[in-house]
């Protein structure tokens, strides 16, 4: 690896860190300075002024905003996410098992969705403008128009209720055997896969098609190479970067899709935790979970960019 490319990657990572800090400010500002009053939200309209003042004092709401921000940020950086207002529990220790659950679910979906999307994308390119391609794009249109809960409840209705193959509610607990855990997440993982599959496949198709239409593919064809050899030797090395990029961007979507899917299947993950506490207006929890989601999202985007940098021969072999 050359120096300029390391510099580019370092720049990209540094930019990501700056972005994370900016996002932390945004989330903080979004929950603290907007017209809503946290104390009022917690206690409701009927609260006495005295109770409100006490709560504000307790939450440190009387400090200037930047003091509260740095206090919060300092906590986040040392792993202290504060305590939940509603339950009084330590947020970090509540989040950890849920984060593991969410990553497990998203991981299962990704393991299925990524190879499938690439395969279908390849098939669509191979038979482009033919019936298979049209079928695939019709499926893509449908799937991008379906709300997540439609897919989710369809799966529940048929697989859990009518045919009773899989459980409707995905209960997982600590120390659950792996296979049992896997069985519990079959339906939510399938739903998640269907949510991102179409989009990922469409983007993969476009990325590969773009490579296949390059002049150097024609050159290879005019050298007498067989179609498979052309794909393996000439298209593949140039398609890796765009495809990795597509995959990472879609994994980022997947992480977001998790929120609704978890609620449908009552799966004990981050999404469900976030939604519960938004409804309870438990600001510290919302801030913490929001920040973690944003961090995962930004990280995946950075990986997508780095993959693009690494796979670019112009950057790998500078003049």
């Amino acid at each position, binding site marked *: 690896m050359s120096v300029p490319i390391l510099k580019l990657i370092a720049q990209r990572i540094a930019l990501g860190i700056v*972005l994370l800090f*900016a*996002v932390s400010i*945004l*989330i903080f500002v*979004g*929950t*603290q300075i*907007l*017209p*809503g*009053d*946290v104390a009022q*939200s917690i206690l409701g309209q009927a609260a006495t002024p005295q109770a409100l003042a006490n709560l504000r004092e307790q939450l440190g709401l009387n400090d200037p905003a930047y003091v509260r921000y740095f206090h919060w940020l300092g906590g986040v950086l040392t792993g202290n996410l504060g305590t939940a207002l509603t339950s009084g529990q330590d947020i970090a220790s509540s989040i950890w098992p849920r984060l593991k659950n969410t990553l497990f679910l998203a991981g299962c979906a990704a393991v299925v969705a990524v190879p499938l999307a690439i395969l279908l994308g390849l098939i669509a390119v191979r038979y482009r403008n033919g019936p298979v391609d049209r079928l695939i794009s019709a499926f893509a*249109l*449908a799937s*991008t*128009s*379906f*709300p*997540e*809960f*439609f897919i989710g*409840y*369809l799966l*529940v*209705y048929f697989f*859990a*209720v*009518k045919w009773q193959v899989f459980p*409707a*509610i995905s209960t997982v607990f600590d120390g659950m055997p792996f296979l049992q855990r896997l069985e519990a997440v079959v339906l939510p993982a399938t739903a998640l896969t269907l949510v991102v599959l179409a989009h990922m496949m469409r983007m993969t198709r476009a990325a590969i098609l773009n490579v296949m239409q390059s002049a150097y593919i024609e050159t290879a064809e005019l050298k007498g190479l067989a179609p498979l050899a052309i794909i393996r030797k000439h298209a593949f090395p140039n398609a890796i970067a765009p495809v990795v990029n597509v995959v990472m961007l879609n994994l*980022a979507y997947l*992480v*977001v899709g998790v*929120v*609704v899917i978890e*609620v*449908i299947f009552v799966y004990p993950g981050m999404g469900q935790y*976030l*939604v519960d*506490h*938004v*409804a309870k*207006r*438990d*600001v510290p929890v*919302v*801030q913490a979970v*929001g920040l973690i*989601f*944003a961090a995962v*999202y*930004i990280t995946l*985007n950075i990986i997508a960019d780095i993959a693009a940098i690494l796979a670019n021969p112009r950057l790998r072999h500078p003049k």
Partner: protein
Amino acid sequence: MLDLKRIPVGAWLGLILTGLFLICAVFAPWIAPHGNGEIVGDVWEPMSAAHWLGTDNLGRDLLSRMIYGARITILIAVLATALSFSLGAILGFTAAAVGGWFDTLMSRFVDLLMSIPTLIFGLVVLSVLPTNTLTLILVMGILDSTRVYRLSRAVAVDINVMDYVEAAKLRGEGMRWIIFREILPNALSPLIAELGVRFIFAVLFLSALSFLGLGVQPPDSDWGGMVKENKDGIVFGIPAALIPAAAIAVLAISVNLVADWVLNRTTDLKGGRGNG
């Protein structure tokens, strides 16, 4: 000229279905057989001649609720789209035409907003804001305007470097002529297609929020909210929740079909008239 025979089947389907939904939304009180909150029977009655779609979790007529739900869903989505579009397009065009620090500042801020997934940021903000329709429209509209901003800016920047815009600048034309006569007519077709996409996104976003219990609040209910109301029936084999969910899907598909057709139609002509 628009030749009716040349409209593809898909687009026809999309136009007709979208039209039907719009009619339901506009004329809901006249079309719906029962009132929105009226309890007309038992809980979760199956489909019958009296109640075509059956009844819901409180024994209200599902068809009537669907029709009223269309009204709320479409109204909020239209208003949010209108907000996101006017905000995003105006700022995007201005950023492209003015350039300089305004462009840099706006674009960096939009990058920042977009680095947080929309749903997550929406949830974070809704956790402190009062729950009412106005808040909902504002949050949806502002968050989504980032995407419109990006598109309008990109389209306008592309057009702005065209020689015909340079020719107009060399002629001494003012900013107004350049934006409204040179840039806008050429930016219109991608923007109109995007309008459809943004509307779908608004419908799906609203439905997701309502499904999570953070959107439209009872007793009013949009389709996403109706899914939430009826979801507990699913495990007993009662498909009531699937009906509003399917309606959302059908609406989204119809609008998608129309948007696709508009995009294809307008990219074909390369300017000028349709059948040149």
